[in-house]
């Protein structure tokens, strides 16, 4: 291939008007794929559950339903704080409030993940591991898939917080990362109802 570069005469101006910013659009498609991923995990779980004689198996420990319910509220609160942070971010002079709200949102998200990890340690202590039963395997698979998404999303939000502090945060990248966190928050109640309340 020839390597000559062409200097475009203002390429951006010669395009159609975008419907949504590139990053937001890409995140929407990515989240759509993630929805299908979790839909598959949920349907696999439901199919195996409906074919089982005892669910959960009698020898396996019961899941901490109430504690996780409270933990779920922590996660939902984190999502709500992020929403508020975006509201402050979009008004003039609201940057300081946005920083505070975003930091709080990240802290609550981290509390959720850490408490989930604490629960796992206790369950493993009771003899519930990935290989102890198909039931336990599905529990760790689904909750673990959600947890790893939450960790990734918190990491992204932390980068956004760093940019916000340096006043370098763009509206569209902030939107895109919010969409990811809202997905992580939004899918959790569904997983909680299906996995914990059986």
């Amino acid at each position, binding site marked *: 291939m020839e390597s*000559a570069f*062409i200097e475009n005469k203002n390429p951006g101006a010669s395009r159609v008007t975008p419907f949504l910013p590139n990053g937001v659009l890409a995140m929407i498609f990515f989240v759509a794929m993630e929805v299908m991923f979790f839909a*598959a995990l949920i349907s696999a779980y439901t199919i195996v559950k409906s074919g089982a004689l005892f669910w959960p198996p009698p020898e396996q420990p019961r899941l901490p339903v109430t504690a996780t319910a409270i933990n779920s509220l922590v996660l939902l609160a984190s999502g709500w704080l992020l929403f508020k942070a975006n509201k402050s971010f979009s008004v003039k002079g609201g940057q300081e409030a946005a920083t505070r709200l975003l930091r709080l949102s990240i802290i609550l998200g981290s509390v959720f993940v850490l408490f989930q990890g604490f629960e796992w340690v206790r369950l493993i202590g009771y003899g519930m591991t990935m290989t102890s039963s198909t039931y336990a395997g599905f529990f760790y698979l689904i909750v673990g898939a959600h947890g790893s998404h939450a960790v990734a999303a918190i990491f992204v939000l932390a980068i956004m917080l760093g940019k916000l502090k340096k006043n370098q945060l763009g509206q569209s990248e902030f939107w895109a990362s919010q969409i990811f966190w809202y997905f992580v928050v939004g899918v959790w109640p569904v997983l909680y109802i299906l996995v914990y309340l059986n």
Partner: protein
Amino acid sequence: MAEAVTTAETTEGAHSHHGEPDFWSKYIFSTDHKMIAMQYMFTGMIMALIGGYMAYVFRMQLAFPGESVPGYGTVTPLAYNSLITNHGAIMIFWVAMPILIAALGNFLIPLMIGCDDMVFPRVNRLSYQIFLLSAIILIASFFVPGGGFGGAWTAYPPLSAQSQYNLTPFGAPMWLLAVALEFVAFLLGGINFITTTMNARAKGMKMYDIPIVVWMIVIASILFMASVGPLIAGAVMLLFDQVLGTTFYNPDAGGDPVLWQHLFWFFGHPEVYVVLLPAMGVVAEVITVFARKKLFAYKTILYTTFATGILSFFVWAHHQFIAGIDPRMAHIFTVTTVLISIPIAEMLFCYIATLYGGSIRLTTAMLFALSFLAEFLIGGVTGIYLGASGTDIYFHDTYFVLAHFHYTFFPIAIIGFFTAIYYWFPKMFGRMMNETWGKIHFWGTIICFNGIFLPLFVLGMGGQHRRIYNFNNFPDLATPEMQDLRIFATWSAVAMLVFQIPFLINFTVSLFKGKKAGKNPWNANTLEWVAPSPPPHGNFAEMPVVYRAPYEYSVPGREKDYWPQNMPD
């Protein structure tokens, strides 16, 4: 073809601006969409040669069981399993996908919609690097103890989940990891394709001004993204079953092996259309240009593509008619399966109607495009017997199925690729390919292809099952008549591989010595022919503005029989 190259123009409009980049940043770590397309294309071609070599080895084993295969040696049963598994996986995931979606999508989308690059160039580069890593892992898996994965490319558990059955303790997880990484690569690519087409089109290019091939690649990417999630979930579960010893698919411990089949085919069937649609798009472009006629019923083709895409999510269980699914469910899936032939047939009719009354030019690209229609039709028609749950009980897992899907996948992956390469080669490399050698290659490939797979239909109807190492162990299948057909198919396969040598020589020689191509050697309308050949980094000297739909050929009252999209009047 002399008149087609009269508008040859030189590539001087491009002035050097950034200076000469070094080898690594130009060829290896480039973010230029065209270079990434070339990386995908050449990787795909190398993988096609590996996959073809595997086919040669196991076809020789089937024709002359137990004898030493020239260039390989004696085929053991374990090696046979590994060869057929990896032949299937390579041809679909490492040949059809990278060439049709990734290479053509990367090369064509920015050029055809008139923009300078993908909207996420670095994500694009990452996509190829992950893909390359997946290919390396796959090839490395042939050399680990136990050899490459031998549980068939569909990887049904418990055969694939437990190494005491597949006997490839290291090959199996490596294969699965390679497939998963490959999906990540195409996920990144697909997001890029969709976003670029939505946001970066040239000014004036409305929805119905987008060339069909771009539409098809974008819709294929959407299908891929919507269907791949379940397979990633299923693959993670299978990997855990293999490596950690979980019991998701183990019926002894409360798991469900048929669950994998659902997750696999929920992806696997849309995947057929993921690779079919770009090939259909390529054929549409080539047919209109060489029939010098407006594409018949642009909107109908587009809507039938949407219909195909939606229906493709409701047909997957036709792969499982004898897996113990509920017969009532089988009826529903029979109906949806037969239903999906309607939009595809409609599309083919539109293509034939485009040819009707056109002034057809039988270039090599056009010959391949026409043969695509004929060969894919055979694949489609034989699919009806397999889609009907009644007949499928007899045909399931026979060579009839095998011949059927090779009559769909060979036109898609190989004929589709050749159509594209003979048509866009001047744009890719700035030189023309030799037409005479192209036609020798065409006839050799097409005749031999039919010679391979027509006998396999007959063998399949005679009850010959797939995935059998040596038919001499089955007296009913070891008759001299059946063996003759096997030998005929094998020699056809060898001849077809030999006929690829003219192509490789033609390709290499044309790359350096071919006749210089102008900007628009075929007198085509779409925007890629506005850019210099080969297009430099940044594609267009002046970003094009679009004034009309892409297929205005032979418009009455115009002097020339084509009307480029960017021409104001």
